[in-house]
């Protein structure tokens, strides 16, 4: 076979002209597929449009000031208004970080339990319970949290304050523990544990069997195997799951509203019964809001939208990167 004489031809271009029915089909499906793009775009557009006036008037103060007040005269004209979200934003972040800090270790442990410790029958039952908990409505968590969980959590908060009160974060002055960001964080943690657990469980389940066996064949105990194989493999997946949980915690409305005392003052003390939350603010103020305040709430919604969108985008990016590198 002489290779020099052979002329390598250009690859032929293969074209197919779809039939009309297929063109229609593809058109319809593509339109449907693009709807998510349209909806997300419209959300940003309309909230920005409605909230524009307020954002323009408040400027950067909308996210740096803590005060939220509006004064109307008798004919419902706005006399004076001050809208600032800083207390609400700080509260949102505080509650959701408390939630993630509590939820991640518990979720990772229970995902490990499901994958590597539980017998098959127990795993089946527990997976069903976890999946079902993820589908529970938030109002259920809210009311249960308020009536059942809150007294216990307050007791724990007092214990933390008693022994760790010297840390500024756990300071409580005045001595008031009811409906604190910590309580809201615990309720949120219980809500996002199923989410992080199922993401972690799926990531851990993909840990390559041959490496797991290699570790066991080298005389590893179960934990040594997990540390050497499963954790390095699943780490970024767990981080992604935690970010998804964080996004969910930040956008949660009803459950937080029921257990959180909303105060328009920036408060970093988790155990103190004074918190803030953007989503709950909207529910709190919506009922009696004037037209102009509604616009401020729309602007607050816009801020929340971008906050959760960026957290989710980062989460997706991390989870996707895990899938690609195949580790």
């Amino acid at each position, binding site marked *: 076979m002489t290779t020099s004489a052979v002329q390598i031809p250009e690859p032929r271009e293969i074209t197919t002209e779809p039939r009309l029915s297929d063109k229609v089909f593809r058109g319809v499906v593509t339109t449907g597929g693009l709807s998510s793009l349209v909806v997300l775009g419209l959300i940003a557009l309309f909230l920005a449009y409605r909230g524009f006036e307020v954002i323009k008037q408040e400027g950067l103060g909308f996210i740096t000031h803590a005060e939220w007040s509006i004064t109307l005269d008798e004919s419902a004209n706005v006399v004076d208004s001050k809208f600032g979200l800083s207390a609400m934003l700080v509260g949102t972040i505080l509650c959701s970080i408390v939630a993630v800090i509590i939820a991640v270790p518990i979720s990772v442990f229970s995902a490990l339990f499901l994958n590597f410790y539980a017998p098959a029958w127990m795993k089946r039952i527990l997976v069903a319970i976890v999946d079902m908990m993820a589908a529970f409505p938030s109002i259920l968590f809210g009311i249960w949290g308020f009536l059942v969980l809150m007294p216990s959590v307050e007791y724990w908060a007092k214990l933390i304050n008693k022994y760790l009160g010297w840390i500024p974060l756990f300071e409580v002055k005045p001595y008031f523990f009811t409906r604190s960001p910590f309580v809201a964080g615990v309720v949120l943690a219980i809500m996002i544990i199923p989410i992080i657990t199922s993401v972690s469980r799926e990531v851990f389940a993909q840990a390559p069997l041959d*490496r797991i066996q290699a570790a066991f*064949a*080298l*005389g*590893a105990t179960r934990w*040594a195997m997990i540390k*050497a194989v499963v954790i*390095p*493999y699943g780490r970024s997946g767990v981080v992604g799951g935690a970010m998804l949980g964080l996004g969910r915690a930040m956008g949660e409305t009803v459950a937080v509203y029921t257990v959180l005392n909303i105060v328009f003052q920036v408060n970093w003390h988790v155990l103190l019964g004074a918190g803030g939350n953007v989503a709950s603010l909207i529910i709190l103020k919506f009922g009696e809001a004037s037209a102009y305040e509604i616009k401020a709430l729309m602007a607050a919604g816009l801020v929340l939208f971008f906050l959760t969108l960026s957290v989710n985008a980062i989460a997706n990016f991390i989870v996707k990167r895990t899938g690609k590198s195949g580790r």
Partner: protein
Amino acid sequence: MIQTPESEKTMSSTTPSSLASVAQAKPERNGTNSAQGTGLETRGIHAWFGKNHVLSDINLDFTAGSVTALIGPSGCGKSTFIRTINRMHEFIPGAAMAGEVLLDGKDVYAPGVDVTKIRLQIGMVFQKPNPFPSMTIGENVLSGLKLAQLKVDNKDDLLEECLVRAGLWTEVKDRLNTHGGSLSGGQQQRLCIARALAVRPQVLLMDEPCSALDPGSTLRIEDTIRELSDTMTIVIVTHNMQQAARVSDYTAFFLSDGGPGEMIEVARTSEIFSQPKDQRTENYVTGRFG
């Protein structure tokens, strides 16, 4: 590397006489005293997956300091058998077994035996190279020590020794701190052998260690196996009869006729390939089936 295709070509034209001559080309060995311990024996090993009886009554003594090859068609229970030896069988849900595996006269399945200690004494190399990607080459070799929390005086010496014995030292000595994923398939498999050696096992089980590799890498690993067998007991499962002829001192033929896998015959490798006692063995090694 260059002579590889040549040697493969001659051997791929399978005739019993060529296999027998390959088997006889090695120096005759009975196992040497330099190997640690007194050896490995199995007594009446059966294995089940759920209700499925896959392996029946295997009695096999492995001589210390020798290589034993397990050959036979797919599904005859060879891999299951070696996985019962180091207790990897029990990871499969529904698995069960019967019989005894005696290491230095002690049953590895006896109550109260620490299974992790057993696996330290009986190392294993898998079909697909499986280095830990999160660790460097050096860390991979020493990973067994870390996993089992063993202390060793001089890690660098051990690292070098294991890599030398696995025939990988010259290729990787300048990049011990790079990740194992950058190695070729054959190098990765030798890295896995080095990793298994680092905990100083008495026995090394190899489950088709070359089936995922190219012919050149296969020969390198076979050389390594020959060298290692001076100091340890090696059991190798292979589909490749030439490989069995090239590396092993003893060969056991496994077969399943629809029921559980059984061991048909075990003998010196040269005998199995030149004058097998059982007709079925002869049919298999002459390529009439399988």
